[in-house]
């Protein structure tokens, strides 16, 4: 039997938390960030399947190590289970998903509908993205939509939440209560515009931002310095994107094939020089976390360990960013546990009781 965890609705883990003053959502991530705790988020590798167990199993390995899980929206323009579908499954199990919305595949009509649907399912966090171009994925012949851009998408959801209206001005009966996120990439040109661009995103409604993979800490530090000078870090929670590189070869491949990811030569040299490159990649990630967590204005890390999800727990543990805190963990409900404790033997005992035997033993 377990005591109720912090940030959990006593009436059921799938239900929203009590509203708090100054909070725009009823989710766990916003509570953690507003309490000033160092938050950890991660990304769920979306399955290419229609089996809900695939999602549950992929979420289970993050149990007790992360505060929220990104449900990606066909990232890299590759077809996978939709972010709305993943969120539906995760919220059922009490997880705190961050629903990613990319502008690539849906127009404003579909997006606003999904925002309402997601919020109704208990999604408390939404991340507004532009989305990769269709040429990057497995269906380069698809029509790119890009009806909104990440900025106007942020503004649209903010208007829905704060003004209780669709973009058209039509009223909502119950506005979605969501914590709004955006993505920033400090590692791509135009470098001097990026901190200003972050300010624009805050103006449009961003409350937290997750950055692209950070492999170049000095460059990130410069970006954060400028963001602090502009006063942005007081208005937004910045989660630095980090992740392990599997090998020097992977790093080189990513550098030349995945747009927007900047990997300095020093990183590749370090990986090449290592005996066990995978282990070194993990250590490099931990070292980067330890460096960025000291940068003023950083509220957490976003660990993206694509196809190395099993390392997330180790990375979070070994970097010690949680400082002993344990994020919410899915546990068996108390009544289920009680039934299991008392009647578990029925499953294992090899006794077949008949009614005649029961009468005999009763006398």
């Amino acid at each position, binding site marked *: 039997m377990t005591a109720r965890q912090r940030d959990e609705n006593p009436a059921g883990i799938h239900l929203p938390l009590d509203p708090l003053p100054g909070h725009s959502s009823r989710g766990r991530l916003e509570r953690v960030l507003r309490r000033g705790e160092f938050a950890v988020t991660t990304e769920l590798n979306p399955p290419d399947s229609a089996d809900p167990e695939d999602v549950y199993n992929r979420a289970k390995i993050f149990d007790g190590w992360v505060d929220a899980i990104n449900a990606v929206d066909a990232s890299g323009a590759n077809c996978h289970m939709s972010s709305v579908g993943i969120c539906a499954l995760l919220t059922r199990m009490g997880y705190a998903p961050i629903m990613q919305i990319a502008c690539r595949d849906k127009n*404003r009509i579909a997006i606003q509908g999904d925002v309402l649907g997601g919020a109704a399912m208990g999604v408390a966090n939404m991340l507004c993205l*532009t989305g990769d171009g269709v040429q990057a994925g497995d269906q380069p012949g698809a029509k790119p939509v*890009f009806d909104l*851009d990440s900025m106007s998408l942020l503004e649209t959801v903010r208007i829905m939440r704060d003004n209780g209206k669709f973009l058209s001005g039509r009223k909502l009966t119950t506005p979605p209560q969501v914590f709004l996120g955006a993505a920033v990439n400090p590692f791509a*040109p*135009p470098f001097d515009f990026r901190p200003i661009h972050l300010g624009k995103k805050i103006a449009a409604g961003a409350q937290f931002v997750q950055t692209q993979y950070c492999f170049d800490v000095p460059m990130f530090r410069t970006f954060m310095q400028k963001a602090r000078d502009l006063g942005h870090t007081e208005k937004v929670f910045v989660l630095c994107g980090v992740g392990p590189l599997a090998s020097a070869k992977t790093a080189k*491949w990513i550098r030349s*094939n995945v747009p927007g990811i900047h990997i300095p030569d020093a990183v590749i040299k370090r990986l090449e020089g290592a005996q066990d490159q995978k282990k070194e990649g993990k250590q490099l990630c931990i070292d980067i976390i330890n460096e960025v967590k000291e940068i003023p204005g950083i509220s957490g890390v976003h660990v993206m360990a694509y196809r190395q999800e099993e390392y997330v727990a180790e990375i979070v543990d070994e970097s010690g960013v949680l400082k002993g805190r344990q994020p919410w963990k899915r546990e068996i409900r108390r009544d289920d546990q009680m039934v299991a404790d008392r009647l578990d033997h029925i499953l294992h005992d090899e006794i077949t009781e008949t009614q005649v035997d029961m009468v005999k033993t009763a006398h």
Partner: protein
Amino acid sequence: MSETTPVKNDGPTVTQATLVKKAAPKSDYKPADVSPQRRVQRSFAVRLWSIRHSRLLEWFYSRFADMFLLLHPLWKGIGYGRVEAPIKFVEKRVKGFMFDCRMCGQCILSSTGMSCPMNCPKQLRNGPCGGVRANGNCEVEPDMPCVWVKAWEGSQNMVNSDKILAVQKPVDQSLRETSAWLRVTAQAAATREAAAAPKTGAGA
């Protein structure tokens, strides 16, 4: 966030896109590997010239807008509906030559350093995406300089360099292929009349 495409540690790297392309039937005809928004062009020289001379064009544009507003009685006399076709014909060609205009009908060139944001394959109107290449070129069209990298450069030369900070509304698709010049003029005339109306009312 971006997803890194699967990488095998042994052997040549194969992405899903490569597999799809390989599976496609082979023929001599090889279409360009570019975005569907692309227009048939190889050179961005004129567009880049306009961005380099954004300050001059900003000055010229404001004079030009004033002139158009002066001609408001003329437009109104003929009827905005009737002048639409010839003005659009001219506007499309002039702006098409200067900026590679896509006739979205809601021109924001003065807020984007004279770099037309509709030339971005993602049609972003509020700033660059995260996929800009290290050399400042576009993620989708590798030989095209990023529209927003150029927009930032162009805006820094302009007098109203902070107009780039305004959050732009989503494109109204119903205004496509209409004249932005005439719309701006009609709106300016309407606000001018609205401002003048209470005065005359008080005078009479």
